[in-house]
């Protein structure tokens, strides 16, 4: 340690643009340096790391310890740049074999947790081989505080993601009066407030909404001048991706700008991400991140059984839109067939198609899910 300290100091003395890297794989350490201004691309970095450790045939994940001691991933150009630029002074890099990494989550306090013996590891049949836990977008977000930089500090804009979650949204709103500062002094204006949280509901579990918080906007539309019923309808209409701007009744927990502003969302998703195991959620977990972010809700179209004389059905890939990326290829794999069927029957009220269908028609052809 002492030596490295000296070395980094001397390096810094010589050339401020060089970043010393200490890379650890298992019990082995390697040291090298990177250019702080031009760190290069993640791909090159990955190759360099694999090369220096002589582990070219193994798939690995790369992480680094940030200033707070949290283990954070390096898996793209952005977080690579961030890691290099934030290295102070030393960049400590940790390399793991990918299958091992699955059982270790990145995030706050993860370094200290890692010190424990590997008793938490579960090997065996329960392990899902294709699930890449560890990258932030593989988590299904449940809630987040957004737009911290543009809304007043006294307000909070909360986004609740309900996609695939079986939990109720779980809150009630009511009419009330709030006090506003007007040119002619304080004035009382009607407002809408959160009146009740359902225990165990999504809203309660996020910890971002509370009873007596005043609702100011719903998905960017001000609620001032709208009736309780209108606000209710707006919230329900947006319930798949609800963004509520509230003025919290408790103003002590406000996000203070300039510090670690993004911390809270990761923590809350941690607590709920592992709970759902239902088929619908299963599928939606694989949503590409941009689709999940969009406020688009996906209608489901089921193709009926068409007569043989009709044109061949377009390939499933061309039909996919929203959840297609995850679904369409899996339609053909026999293992997933069952879960798709379950998904379909959960979406449809009647498993049979109609009188006119030949018996067993559904099973024979298998409906395609598109959109």
């Amino acid at each position, binding site marked *: 340690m002492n030596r490295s300290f000296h070395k980094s100091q001397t390096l810094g003395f010589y050339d401020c643009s060089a970043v010393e890297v200490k890379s650890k794989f298992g019990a082995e350490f390697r040291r090298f340096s990177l250019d702080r201004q031009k760190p290069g691309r993640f791909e090159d970095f990955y190759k360099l790391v694999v090369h220096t450790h002589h582990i070219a045939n193994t798939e690995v994940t790369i992480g680094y310890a940030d200033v707070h001691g949290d283990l954070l991933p390096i898996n793209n150009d952005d977080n690579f740049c961030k890691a290099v630029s934030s290295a102070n002074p030393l960049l400590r890099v940790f390399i793991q074999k990918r299958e091992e990494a699955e059982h270790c989550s990145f995030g706050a306090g993860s370094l200290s947790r890692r010190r424990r013996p590997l008793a938490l590891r579960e090997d065996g049949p329960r392990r899902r081989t294709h699930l890449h836990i560890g990258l932030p977008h593989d988590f299904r977000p449940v809630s987040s505080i957004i737009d911290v930089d543009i809304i007043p500090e006294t307000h909070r804009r909360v986004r609740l993601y309900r996609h695939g979650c079986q939990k109720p949204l779980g809150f009630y709103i009511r009419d009330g009066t709030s006090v506003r500062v007007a040119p002619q002094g304080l004035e009382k204006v009607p407002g809408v407030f959160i009146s009740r949280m359902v225990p165990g509901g999504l809203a309660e579990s996020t910890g971002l909404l509370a009873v007596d918080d005043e609702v100011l906007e719903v998905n960017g539309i001000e609620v001032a001048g709208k009736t309780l019923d209108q606000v209710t309808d707006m919230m329900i209409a947006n319930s798949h991706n609800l963004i509520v701007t509230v003025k919290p009744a408790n103003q002590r927990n406000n996000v203070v700008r300039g510090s670690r502003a993004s911390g809270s969302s990761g923590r809350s998703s941690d607590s709920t991400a592992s709970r759902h195991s239902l088929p619908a959620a299963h599928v939606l977990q694989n949503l590409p991140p941009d689709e999940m972010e969009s406020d688009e809700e996906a*209608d489901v179209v089921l193709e*009926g059984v068409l007569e043989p004389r009709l044109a061949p059905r377009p390939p499933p890939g061309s039909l996919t839109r929203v959840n297609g990326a995850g679904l369409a290829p899996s339609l053909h794999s026999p293992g997933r067939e069952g879960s798709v069927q379950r998904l379909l029957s959960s979406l449809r009220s009647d498993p049979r198609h109609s009188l006119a269908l030949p018996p067993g028609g559904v099973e024979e052809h298998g409906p395609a899910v598109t959109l």
Partner: protein
Amino acid sequence: MMKFRFRRQGADPQREKLKQELFAFHKTVEHGFPNQPSALAFDPELRIMAIGTRSGAVKIYGAPGVEFTGLHRDAATVTQMHFLPGQGRVLTLLDDDSLHLWEIVHHDGCAHLEEAIHFQAPSRPGFDGASGLPSLAHITVVLLVAAGDMAALGTEGGSIFFLDVPTLTLLEGQTLGPDEVLRSVPDDYRCGKALGPVESLQGHLRDPTKILIGYSRGLLVIWNQAARCAERIFLGNQQLESVCWERSGHTVVSSHSDGSYAIWAADTGDSPTAQPTVATTPYGPFPCKAINKVLWRSCASGEHFVIFSGGMPRASYGDRHCVSVLQAETLVTLDFTSRVIDFFTVHSTRPEDEFDEPQALAVLLEEELVVLDLQTPGWPAVPAPYLAPLHSSAITCSAHVANVPAKLWARIVSAGEQQSPQPASGASSWPITGGRNLAQEPSQRGLLLTGHEDGTVRFWDASGVALRPLYKLCTAGLFQTDCEHADSLAQAAEDDWPPFRKVGCFDPYSDDPRLGVQKVALCKYTAQMVVAGTAGQVLVLELSDTPAEQTVGVASLDLLQDREGFTWKGHERLSPRLGPLPWPAGFQPRALVQCLPPAAVTAVTLHAEWGLVAFGTSHGFGLFDYLRRSPVLARCTLHPSDSLAMEGPLSRVKSLKKSLRQSFRRIRKSRASGKKRTVAGSKLQEANAQLAEQAGPQDVEVTPVQRRIEPRSADDSLSGVVRCLYFADTFLRDAAHHGPTMWAGTNSGSVFAYALEVPAAVAGGEKRPERAVEAVLGKEVQLMHRAPVVAIAVLDGRGRPLPEPYEASRDLAQAPDMQGGHAVLIASEEQFKVFTLPKVSAKTKFKLTAHEGCRVRKVALATFASVACEDYTETCLACLTNLGDVHVFSVPGLRPQVHYACIRKEDISGIASCVFTRHGQGFYLISPSEFERFSLSARNITEPLCSLDVRWPRGATHIRHPRAT
């Protein structure tokens, strides 16, 4: 982001200009019968009639199409109305003791009704000193004297005030107090008792200085206002209800609270007359109710008419609403179904005529207006060309058919004429003929269909300002109902005294609630229609010009499809009458389908070209081939956990409970308000009340209303209700072949699309070959927001909605573009979406609820024509929300164009009753008996345009006084 989009649109001046040429919002005319009428007046010179209502509305009617409407600023009951004869002015008295003068003024050649001036009686007597001056509080009667220049106001205190009408100012010093009258009355009559309120004031036709005053106690006085002396005094002792002064002035008729009327001779003797020449109790000898109003009309034949309301024997017929017409030995007791408000006769009012010669009697009832022809023997009722009681049985649904072909129109009219033969004199006998209708002949015929609770469908001519009944279709005859024999028994048991005659058509009592009509659809090219009802009955009918006797084919369709675990707990299905039944000319049933379980039909659609009818209930939908009389498809839409759908119309039970509660509340309220009016209340009490009111909203912490925020889930109750059905010839299977399709949308946001295999018709032949129609499920769309699907429409390659069946094949509409890609517009309660076809992928959308917080109640595609350019039209989506606003969106871009506040959001029945026309107009019920017509189009407006030949006295100009405050 949406805000940007709006702004960008708003900034385009060209589009803004175009929008102004296309869209404009007007509430144009109120059709039907005014709700809660309270006053009636007739101007014999202009031959116009005025009706006042309890909500303060004034409506003036003349010839068909001549209508004026005004509304008092305070929603107080109009208690009396008096025309200034020939001037087109009417003086109204409200129950807050204010007088208002309305006048018909002409702007740009069209006449309008406007309030000119008003007069508020000083309500507190003690205001101008504590003198014993008589108070003007509580005006009981108004009489216009001296050709309307002066009005006499009789009050509860027994005084009579005089008012200068053109300025509505009190003529001081002319007031006639009861003391002055009492001076001429013999002492033994006086005996210390007050005369009571002035009950009646009558003027003399030829001598305007004379006034006949009737006091509540029974005293009648002919007062000479010029000489200020009593000319004649009749010492009646029976409590007075009304007085009529015969035209010659020789006879006075008074009616009394004990059910009697008395005739007094006015031309004999000078001394006070103590006894009438005749006094009779027409429905005696047992105690009778009061005769509220009596009219005496003389005829050249010498057999005068006595017409009076009330006076029925208290015990046996005290609850009847009757007007009796007596001429010589002929007595007819007109038996109405609702309360008599007022009545008048149309007769000669020229002073030079010797006799009244009444032509007609018009009776205003609570729910309708009945006019009898008094010149035709038997006094038949004259069918009214307007003011039809729409609610003769409660309206349960309505539909509008635009551009009705002339041929079908003529056939419907002729069927209606056969149904109710017009009297020989026909249209000429309608006595209220004032004014001229300036509106152009409507360019197209519009038909409004209303379905009613008693199983009837009424056809109305909605082309113009006057909503005219054309034809009435009764479906009850097809079914066996329980109460069939009750009516005839009741009729037989009735004595022939009094000689009752049932008049009017207001009959709110339904034999069987299951008969109620829920949905109506009419094909205007084949004159076929579907009527669907509360007990799951779907009736296919066809117009026939001749009566026929035939058997109706009955089929039933199980919509549950053996789904297990469901038992229907609601009403049973109607049992149809089997065997051949006689049907009059008009729509005759061809086929009857009964849904099982027999829940109310929630959606229906008809495709006459394919011979198919589709219908849906809360359990599923079915498709029926009525040419072959065979079911094609049945599909259950119930969610397995939905138990509420099987309950049947529970709401009925609930509503009974509710209505009981409400009626109790109403009674309590009316008592309370009655007290408030009579007890003036001390200042202290008032101050307390004010304080309490002020403190109210702040101090009283009411438990706030909460709303749960939870998205709809699949197992919400009643999610299986089928909300809309639609037929279209479009591309469902692939982009190369189009064909018949059927679409169904449910309450939970599911859309089912079926490809239909309809055997092609043999060339030249109307009938299809005997091959079965087949339906194959093509697509099933589940809207993720799960909001109820309100409407479905397919747009052609140019983005226009597909024409109706037969429209294109008969060259009545532009053929749809079958080359470009079709699209389907799905309107849910929360958003509109356009999807491409055959591959269903979202193209455009507008999320109304997410942006505005309102929900869609009614939608329709309408064509808007430009005012500036003759043939520029745009097809837009008109939408009514639960807040009562009307929004217009472009199609298929779904961009918001305009929106207007149309209906109060509290008026739930108004919003539920709204129906749009194809040309940008709409109707909604403003009361059970009135449709308000509105137009969204700047070009297509149906509003009253009329003129009235008004004679201003003394060359006066319009009365315009600077109003106080």
